């Protein structure tokens, strides 16, 4: 049985048809490509935000401020308690004397401070959360020392990186919603285009039905149409995303450079591109199936 020959022949015929009506095909590719580019771009953005938050040393933590004149032993005891906590990576203690020395060194008020009878600054410590630990873990660590002796205040820091992480969650959800909406859009665009292709080949379909073609055989050329439109759309989406990356490369490099980081785009790799083409092809085939099912079932031969 020449099943493969038949598929190859139909694929070649479809390519010829698509090439013959290149203007229309290009418009379909552009529409499908735009529909795919936005959610794919958001996926890339989300991947990069996730990469950024995991790679940067900007993890959240907590700061403990002690009462003025608190015993150093009390400060160290709180520090040890936090270091023993399973979600705390490290604890940095700043004694009252060190705080005063730092202040003198950086404030330019060294002479004035010399006149004071006693050190007005409290001791403090900063605990940094382990990678992978969550905000509730940080809350739990804070709660374990908030009532300790000599503790005056406790500040749980939600770093800007945590906010970036939250933003990436928003981008993620937005990507899913837009992905669904634009996916439906891509299916409808393909379905409409395939429907037009079906209408232009009704004579052939009538003859095919007359000579005993099954529904599957009659659908086959149009599924190839859908796949071609979808793959083409995926390719256009990849080109649009590349273009956007080129356009934002310089300003983004400047922004990241100000945080001491090089520009490295995560996710825009061969796997992403193949995935984009496959999703495009799949959506195209779904659109073609819808159009063929709707039209061919009502086909009158004579």
């Amino acid at each position, binding site marked *: 049985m*020449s099943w493969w020959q038949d598929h190859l022949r139909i694929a070649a015929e479809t390519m010829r048809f698509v090439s013959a009506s290149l203007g229309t095909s290009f418009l379909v590719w552009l529409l499908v490509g735009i529909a795919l580019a936005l959610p794919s771009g958001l996926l890339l953005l989300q991947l990069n935000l996730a990469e950024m938050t995991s790679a940067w040393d900007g993890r959240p933590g907590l700061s403990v401020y002690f009462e003025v004149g608190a015993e150093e032993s009390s400060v160290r005891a709180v520090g040890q308690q936090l270091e023993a906590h399973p979600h705390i990576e490290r604890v940095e203690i700043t004694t009252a004397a060190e705080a005063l020395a730092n202040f003198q060194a950086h404030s330019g008020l060294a002479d004035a401070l010399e006149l004071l009878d006693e050190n007005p600054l409290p001791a403090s410590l900063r605990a940094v959360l382990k990678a992978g630990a969550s905000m509730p873990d940080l809350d739990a660590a804070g709660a374990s020392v908030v009532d300790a002796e000599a503790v005056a205040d406790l500040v749980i820091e939600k770093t800007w990186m945590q906010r970036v992480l939250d933003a990436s969650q928003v981008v993620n959800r937005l990507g899913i919603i837009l992905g669904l909406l634009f996916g439906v859009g891509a299916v409808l665009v393909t379905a409409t285009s395939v429907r037009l292709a079906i209408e232009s080949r009704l004579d052939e379909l009538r003859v095919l039905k*007359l*000579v005993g073609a*099954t*529904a599957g055989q009659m659908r086959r050329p149009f599924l190839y149409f859908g796949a071609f439109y979808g793959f083409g759309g995926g390719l256009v989406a990849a080109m649009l995303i590349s273009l956007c990356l080129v356009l934002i490369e310089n300003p983004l490099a400047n922004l990241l450079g100000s945080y001491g980081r090089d520009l490295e785009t995560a996710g825009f790799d061969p796997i992403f591109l193949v995935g984009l083409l496959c999703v495009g092809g799949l959506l195209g085939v779904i659109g073609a199936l819808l159009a063929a099912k709707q039209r061919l079932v009502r086909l009158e031969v004579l």
Partner: protein
Amino acid sequence: MGQIEFHGVTKRFDSGFEALKDITAEFAEGSMTFLTGHSGAGKSTFLKLLLCLDRVTRGQILVNGINVTQLKAKRLAYYRRNVGTVFQDHHLLAHRNIFDNVALPLRVNGMREREVGRRVRAALSRVGLLPKERLLPQFLSTGEQQRVGIARAVVTRPKILLADEPTGNLDPELSKNIMELFRQFNEVGTTVLVASHDRALIESMGAPIVELAQGRIVAGHRGG
């Protein structure tokens, strides 16, 4: 038992018009029969129902003992592969050459390209059009186009060949030639059923004639 049997077949359209009324007829395997009657007598409906291109309102149509009116879509497609069809409007595909037009049923059957080539050339040779296999249908005369239609109908070597007004657009001499082609296919065992209003032509062929009028068989049916 006939190869083709109509049992009390009635076809009523949504408008209420009855194209066929309680038709009972049978056609033996290897027979050649002409269906005749005025325009609107029910000849085309008869053939359409036999091809299951329309549904019967009442009755049964048996082909080789199988009630084809009850076939599901896929089996119906396979059934049609065994029935060659020729129409007045030959339904050739304008953008495909003669070879590809004739090859269509074989490709639908999933035949290998080498065998497709052999069979198509044999069929075209039979209708005298082998030298024109690479031409588009528009470059052929009406008679030649009809012969391409016949080649396409017989290329699968069907058991049954149906023709609906196959000579409607042809002059008397070409019409005679086309009918002779049908006779040749009948002589190798194909059951041939031809609908034509050209009484003189079909009487000259000397084959049984079934006459329809207002959806009923009014003369000539002898059960093939």
